């Protein structure tokens, strides 16, 4: 008897914190949040010896998700989020394979020294996720997303080191801080990438969610034909913020 009552109470809680529109079991969530992360090789290759500086650039996301529950626990969610994200990083690398193309000229080799990178992306993400209600007030959702990039930068410089031209037995070319070699790969970047979004929502108030999650890029930001950066670079961003539930 007691168990049934408890179950009924939980049932009430699920209904109480359920979709805004009880007839259609659906609703809309407007989100605004902060994005923190970077575009990185995964896992970090051994050639990266230390990360000395890390600073996010930009870092906002706004968007909306429409969802519909198809059972007590399960639902589907489709969104459209705008983002502006990026980072600045300074790393010490050893024997890091790199190449630079410019006006049909090519210089490649293995660099040991300091590598500074700044990258920014402005775009939108379309996630299609399955939603699962962990508890009356907790939702988890996961699924693929496609990101379209409207504006992007990927630039940086190398210094305090040397390049072994071609391979580690090639000519050593000194590159000092006073005279860094700069690079800009924005034109080599793809205009899209896809990945997996994992998001947690906590219904803090009747119409207000707190959310946090990860957009884990599964395709590189550069095409596979781009050999300048030896490693596939994946965008990996965490986001957290507040949402309004209609």
């Amino acid at each position, binding site marked *: 008897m007691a168990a049934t009552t408890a179950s009924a109470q939980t049932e009430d809680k699920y209904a109480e914190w359920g979709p805004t529109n009880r007839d259609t079991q659906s609703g809309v969530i407007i989100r605004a949040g902060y994005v923190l992360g970077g575009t990185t090789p995964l896992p970090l290759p051994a050639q*990266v010896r230390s990360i000395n500086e890390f600073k996010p650039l930009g870092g906002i996301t706004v968007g909306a998700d429409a969802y519909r529950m198809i059972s007590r626990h399960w639902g589907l969610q489709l969104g459209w989020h705008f983002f502006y994200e990026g980072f600045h990083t300074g790393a010490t690398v*050893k024997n890091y394979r790199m190449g630079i193309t410019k006006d049909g000229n090519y210089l490649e080799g293995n660099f040991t020294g300091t590598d500074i990178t700044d990258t920014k992306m402005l775009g939108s993400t379309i996630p299609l996720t399955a939603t699962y209600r962990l508890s009356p007030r907790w939702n988890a959702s996961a699924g693929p997303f496609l990101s379209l990039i409207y504006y992007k930068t990927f630039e940086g410089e190398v210094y305090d080191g*040397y390049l072994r031209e071609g391979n*580690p037995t090639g000519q050593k070319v000194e590159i000092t801080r006073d*005279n860094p070699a700069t690079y800009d790969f924005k034109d080599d970047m793809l205009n899209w990438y896809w990945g997996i979004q994992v998001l947690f929502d906590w219904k803090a108030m009747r119409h207000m969610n707190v959310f946090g999650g990860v957009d884990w890029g599964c395709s590189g930001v550069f095409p596979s034909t781009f050999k300048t950066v030896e490693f596939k670079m994946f965008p990996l961003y965490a986001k957290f913020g507040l949402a309004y539930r209609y």
Partner: protein
Amino acid sequence: MKMKRRIPLYALALAALTLNACIDHEPANAECDIERCWIHLDQPEDIFYHDYDTLAGEPISVDRPAEKVVPTSLDSIVFTTRWNATISQPVPLFIEVTPGAKLFIIQDGREVPFVSGTPVDLHATAVGENAEQHFVVRSEDEIWSRHYRISIQIPPMPSYPPEGFEIKFEGYELNSNGQYYVWTETNPFLTEIQWANGNPGFRMSKSSAKPNEYPTVAVPEGGVDGGPYLKLTTCDTGGFGRMVNMRIAAGNHFIGSFDVGQALNGQAGALAATRFGQPFAHKPTRLRGFYRFKPGAVKQDRQGNPMDEADVCDIYCVFYRNTDAAGKQVQLDGANVLSSENIVGLARINHAEVDTSGEGWLPFDLPVNYNTEVSEDDVKERHYSMTICFSSSVDGAYFRGAIGSELCVDNVTLECEY
């Protein structure tokens, strides 16, 4: 608002810490160079002109003459003795390689681990019978290796031909990759002379350039005698050049060596890359020859801004003391080749009198002016070095010049007193 700005600080420190936690073990070294190499003799002055000739390679920099390193571009290490020396006994040979790398000597076709300091047969005689030893350096990561040859060379007895040292730029070929021209001196009286230029540096900025699009080019026909001549052109270095703020490369050609490892290292590096002069047992008196010069349209400064002056070429010969008061090696570079206190003799073209028509072969005749007495004994003991330099832009070392400035040179003669 102020509080908000403070939050990211430790958040970021945490982020950096987290990222560093992902960092893998340091990979083994991939490089496998002979970094330093020297031979030990109890009385080096009996065999060599200078103590420092027992160290292979080049001084690390002008400021650190006592420290010599083997340039990474080198795979043949040659020690040059006095002309009348003979090496018959094995000499202790010292070799330092990249940390972690292993060094082997090749004996009977097999790689035998080599312990630095082991006496090695490097016998050498004046008739050119010399033992060349082969070495292999294998990297710590066991992926890469480099082969080196080490030998001692005895130069021919210095002698001065009555007609002077004639230089005709006829000994040219493409480098091993077929990308640009390199020169060897064909005059049998000047076999030790090494011509260098900035082509290896230009190649890094413009890998797509054809051999005849480089700043320093051999032209096979049309010289003073109808044969080959030297053509120097101030060239645009393209996108890479702009990246490192070196927009132009003047065509140059000089006696000495070019350290391409320094070439992209800013203004100071570019000046240090041109190492002028080699020990010379003759006292120069005149530099004469034939030239043709036409300046490019607009002289530009290092930032690429047009300058309100015309470009002009440069031709000079410098004779300088190659040892300082402490007995250390002195090698002039782009920063001091015309200003060093070690300079005793200088011949230089008068820029105001350079013909800029670019037509026909015109003679130049430049006396070497001495600012001090030079003793013949010191000259014979090779206490002086000599360089001859040609450049299509006088301020080329500072990346100022006009793209398209062209200097052609042929049939140069260096007259000496003895």
